[in-house]
């Protein structure tokens, strides 16, 4: 089932087109890989999808009566600063709506459940600034999942992680996706991750875009054309 139809999307910055005539669909419980060189405007497309910046041409048509809740997992950077909060409290930061300064019973239960499925329960009382890269990314994922989203954006969420941490993170996403019909958009440069977990792909280039099933992705072309691919 399609939940988002991107039609004829074009974004222009200071008289320069980032891209034009981008067409793609987002299907429920599917995994869309968003691919392209650095600077081509992948994050810009995501921000536009969230309604943070306007489109120059085209439109995003949502097929879920405006009920979508989008959550976001950022990229891990080793130099990322964090405060010495407990992991439990760091994950709970995304309870950010409403007037009540403390967490309700249901929210505490939800938090406990998400900590469990992201394999964070045993370290929930340790400090986030001492956690490893993989643990930190799982905490970011937990932050996103706590909000009970139906669309999850992984913005190079597996970059800079070792293989164990990388697949550990993606396995949590896959398991959650199967249980809760979660739709995922993953921005990635990692061909192996994409081929293993994505269903469709959207390739953005300066000259246009390409959308299709992940099997049709011409990996050889990426390797020679894109300097930033692994």
């Amino acid at each position: 089932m399609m939940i988002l139809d991107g039609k004829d999307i074009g974004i222009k910055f200071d008289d320069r087109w980032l891209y034009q005539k981008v067409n793609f669909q987002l299907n429920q419980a599917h995994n869309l890989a968003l691919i392209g060189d650095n600077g081509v405007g992948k994050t810009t497309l995501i921000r536009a999808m969230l309604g943070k910046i306007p489109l120059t041409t085209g439109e995003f048509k949502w097929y879920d009566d405006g009920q979508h809740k989008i959550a976001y997992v950022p990229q891990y950077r080793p130099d990322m600063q964090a405060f010495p909060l407990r992991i439990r409290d760091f994950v709970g930061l995304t309870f950010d709506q409403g007037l009540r300064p403390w967490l309700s019973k249901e929210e505490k239960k939800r938090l406990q459940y998400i900590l469990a499925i992201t394999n964070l329960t045993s370290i929930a009382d340790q400090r986030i600034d001492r956690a490893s890269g993989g643990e930190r990314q799982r905490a970011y994922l937990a932050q996103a999942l706590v909000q009970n989203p139906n669309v999850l954006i992984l913005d190079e969420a597996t970059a800079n992680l070792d293989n164990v941490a990388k697949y550990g993170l993606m396995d949590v996403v896959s398991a959650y996706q199967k249980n809760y019909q979660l739709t995922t958009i993953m921005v990635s440069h990692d061909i192996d991750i994409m081929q293993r977990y994505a269903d469709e792909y959207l390739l953005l280039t300066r000259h246009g875009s390409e959308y299709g099933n992940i099997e049709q992705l011409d990996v050889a072309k990426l390797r020679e054309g894109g300097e930033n691919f692994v």
Partner: protein
Amino acid sequence: MFSFPFMQHAFVAGTLIAIMSGLIGPFIVARRMSFLAHTLSEIGFAGASFALFMSWSPLVGMLLFSVVASMSVGELGMKEQRSESLISAVSAVAIGLGIAFLSLSNKNATAATGILFGSIFSINQTDVWEVVVLATLVILVTLMMFRPLRHFAFDYTTASFSLKNIQLIEVLFLGLMATTVAVSAQIVGSLLIFILMILPASSAMRWGRTVWQIIGLAIMFSVLGVWLALVLSYWLDLPVSFFIAIIEAGVYFISLIKRK
């Protein structure tokens, strides 16, 4: 000691200001806006001098200048790369204006010292009421915005995706900060604004493991610091700001030594 009205006023105002600063400080430190808080206090200095020149209450001038300035800085976009140079330029203009208004108002050096270093023992009943109203307002608004503010301050990256009205929260937060700066300047002076808003919060960050623990500790550090400083100042006849500065800096250095 407590039989003197000036001492009662100082304790009531000082305690409220300490609670307010301790509550808002951790958000400022977490959002890395300490430098901006300091600039706001310099702008507040210009405002207070302007108020003297106009024969208003210094608090009114400070509030006016720092709130307007905080909103316009927000508009200029503090996320930009040039924000540090921008802030330096703004603070230079502010201090310059402050000196100009002071000189125009023909006030003596005592007035200037009061604005720059605080004058808690000279506040009257009306001043106390102003502090009570403003501090209560800041504390209530902060508690009402606690959830979005916590996410905004402690993890801005994900908050910018999760909070729909993040610009509004940013503007409200700057307003809260400006009000706190203006009110706190009444006791520690605009030059020493760091010691109540930033130092207790920075110390608390070394010990607290949840946002509430950090806020609780920050309030405790600032309230105890103010009380102790008032008593010491009463007995030893040295400025309150001096003792608050020494106490809060002392707590901070001890927190630094503590093994992480």
